């Protein structure tokens, strides 16, 4: 198979070239390629990269120079110098690595898989994919999923709020039907509320010294505002408490948590203190069924997750390598008339 891949990624090219390319609609690129007689092409345009995969007619390689010229023309800027040009096996390997998130800024991030899919679907809709690119891109999505599920490149959350939510899930399981209390109404509180709501928390209350700000934040997330004086009562009801007030001393004291614990019927209480100075007295962590995490605890989990993703890169690359070689053998077999079978052999893990 004759395949050419042109990439402008965050790793190599300056943002000017990528910006110029990003401004050209993918549909226009495809239409132009079709008009110039390119048989099969898929373009992938995201904020971090622009990539073009093109396959010529059998036995006839697409000319990278011609493609580069065309793209420069469309982008209205000279983009050729910054392009990485790959061919055949190397191009396949690159696409599989991209789909696996190995080429992303944040290793293993899953958004790119969706973007690869979108790029492929646009090309398919434009009638620009044939047997080779169809199989190549379906294969890329399969490899992307496989690398993520069989290695740790996508394991562990990489942001403080999502780590907090994952921990909440290790305590409570599903968050539907659970309730959260947010103390403070600043930017951090808002971010926390957003994540909890996105992960399906059942009820949300907000308490703040300034009632208006509590009310505004609560209203934004269809929650309930609580007066500052009533927060110990709300704490007795809540399952997850996130505190980020600007108070100079601890506002959630051991006495408050102990009193709340007595009324909770043994339900666990997950306290998250992201304030500096601290909002929650450290000693509450010793209470049975009470779990207190501070900002630095969450940050060290994030750091650990990042390093374990980095450690998994080699294993993911091995999957990419093996699957690229497999695809290459299949593509070569097309010319011989004895097509190799290329099934998604193993069932994807549950």
């Amino acid at each position, binding site marked *: 198979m004759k395949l050419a891949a042109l990439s402008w990624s965050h790793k190599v090219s300056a943002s000017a070239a990528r910006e110029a390319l990003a401004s050209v609609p993918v549909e226009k690129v495809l239409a132009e390629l079709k008009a110039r007689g390119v048989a099969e092409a898929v373009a992938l345009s995201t904020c971090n990269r622009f990539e073009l995969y093109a396959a010529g007619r059998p036995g006839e390689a697409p000319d990278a120079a011609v493609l580069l010229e065309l793209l420069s023309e469309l982008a209205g800027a000279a983009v050729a110098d910054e392009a990485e040009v790959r061919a055949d096996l190397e191009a396949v390997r690159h696409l599989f690595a991209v789909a696996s998130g190995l080429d992303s800024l944040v290793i293993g991030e899953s958004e790119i898989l969706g973007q690869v899919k979108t790029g492929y679907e646009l090309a398919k809709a434009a009638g620009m994919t044939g047997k080779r690119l169809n199989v190549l891109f379906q294969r890329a999505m399969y490899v992307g999923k496989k690398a993520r599920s069989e290695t*740790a490149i996508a394991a*562990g959350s990489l942001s403080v709020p999502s780590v907090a939510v994952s921990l909440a899930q290790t*305590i*409570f*399981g599903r968050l539907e039907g659970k309730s959260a209390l947010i103390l403070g109404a600043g930017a951090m509180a808002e971010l926390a509320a957003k994540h909890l709501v996105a992960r399906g928390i059942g009820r949300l209350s907000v308490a703040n010294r300034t009632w208006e700000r509590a009310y505004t934040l609560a209203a934004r997330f269809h929650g309930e505002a609580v007066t500052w004086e009533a927060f110990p009562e709300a704490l007795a009801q809540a399952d997850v408490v996130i505190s980020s007030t600007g108070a100079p001393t601890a506002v959630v004291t051991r006495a408050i948590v102990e009193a709340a614990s007595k009324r909770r019927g043994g339900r*666990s209480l997950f306290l998250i203190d992201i304030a500096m100075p601290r909002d929650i007295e450290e000693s509450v962590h010793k209470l049975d069924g009470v779990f207190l995490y501070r900002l630095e605890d969450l940050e060290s989990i994030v750091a650990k997750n990042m390093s374990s993703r980095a450690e998994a890169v080699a294993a993911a690359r091995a999957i990419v390598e093996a699957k690229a070689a497999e695809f290459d053998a299949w593509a070569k077999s097309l010319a011989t008339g004895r097509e190799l079978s290329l099934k998604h052999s193993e069932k994807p893990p549950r």
Partner: protein
Amino acid sequence: MTAQSVLAWGAFFLYTAATFAAFGYLFSKDARASRAMLALLGVGLALHVLSFVAHVAAFWVYPENRFFLPLTSFFGALSYMSLALAAAFFIVEGQNRLGILGAFVLPWAAGALGAAVIFANPDAAPLAQPLRSYWLNFHPMLLMTAYAAFANAFGVGVALLIQESQIKSRKPTELCYRLPSLDELDALNGKIVAWSYPVLVAGLVMGFVWAYIDWGRVWTSDPKMILALVTAAIYGAFLWMRYGAGRRGRRTVYVSLWGFASVLITFFGAELFSGRHVFMGGPR
């Protein structure tokens, strides 16, 4: 070697292999290990059922043994409890995503059957005269069923303690995200004990009735009877704490673990110093 022994050894090897697969699943992320665990366990269960049927058949060769269950020998008792535990795990946890708990539950099933095939004599013998009673099909059978369920709850309780200490440590490992949540483990532990407790009580009551019929009195201050009541009291305390006083977490789980320790002492310990209940009458 008889058919029942061959089948029981086969089941033992499959349970052991399933246990290893369960540990593999616990520490890797490989879903194939989970499928292997269930497959090995499933085939092991089939062999085990056949082995138990063969054991019953061999037992009933003696006309005086018909139609009593062969639960009075170590072999029969351990084999039955292992079977009940493996089957309960297969049905309760194995068929949903709680299969990860296999590493905590299956070692007990493999261990009990292993003890049976390695240390106990599988040969059948005529039942002692006082044991030829249909109470035999209920009193020990119900108690052993409850014991198997308590072994299951024990495994869940251990998983719960590990999960709790993971979260308390503030440095959770991968294991923390793979185990079921604290709430799920707590609910499962409570439910298993709550469902098994009536079985335990029913087994004890039948024992008292049998004692009254045979010996003319309910209570004989036999060590095994005392220990069995201690077990019932501990699990009763657990249920009161969990559902009556609304307490959960570490301390209540400790009580349920003590309950299982009491089960083990009752089952094995009483052989050492019980008078009337050295009833594991078959050949050793």
